[in-house]
């Protein structure tokens, strides 16, 4: 399936990209992250949460398609 990957804050800085499309064959969120770790090796050392279609999900969650966002620690306000 085709995923839309979004990057924010210091993660977007690291990927030099705010959004990209990815063809994905697996089933779980952690597999998406593994793919991205291969593409962006510096990602491994970073602390982030993953949101799927604007809800925080765990790495074990199934990928349902749509938007996957990598969110570094929030610092609003």
């Amino acid at each position, binding site marked *: 399936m085709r995923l839309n990957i979004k990057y924010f*804050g210091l993660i977007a800085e690291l990927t030099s990209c705010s959004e990209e499309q990815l063809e994905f064959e697996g089933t779980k969120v952690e597999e998406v992250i593994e793919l991205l770790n291969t593409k962006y090796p510096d990602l491994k050392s970073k602390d982030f949460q993953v*949101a799927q279609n604007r*809800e925080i999900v765990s790495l074990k969650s199934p990928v349902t398609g749509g938007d996957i*966002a990598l*969110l570094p620690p*929030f*610092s*609003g*306000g």
Partner: protein
Amino acid sequence: MKDKKIKNVFKEGAISSEFIGESIAKHQSKISIGAHNIFLGQVRADEIDGKAVSAIEYTAYEDMANEKFHEIREATFEKFNLTCMHIYHSLGTVKVGEICLFVFVSSPRRKEVFKALEYVVEEIKVKAPVFGKEIFEDQSHQWKVNS
């Protein structure tokens, strides 16, 4: 008053004191209100390794953040007896001394507003995907971490 529509909480740049004053004025027709409580986040000239912060540049996952702000709003109306609630957050550059967060709650009774306001602000810090980049005087930067 509950509002089911998802509002856009974000404003480009700093939140002005005039805007805050006008928001207060708009509530004078709501005659069941007895107490307002307002939180303002202001950009602080923190010094880090001898360099002072001169501005914060805010970005956000806007769609998700507006949904989270909406959920926080709904949960707050459930928990507390509020007449109304308003939340505004800056995007883009906000300079030291300027205001980047404006949360406004109103209720017939004061005890409610204190509890509600603190709840809303803490929820925003934890749940809203907003990212602050601290810009130093020499144009270097670091990513802000909430404490």
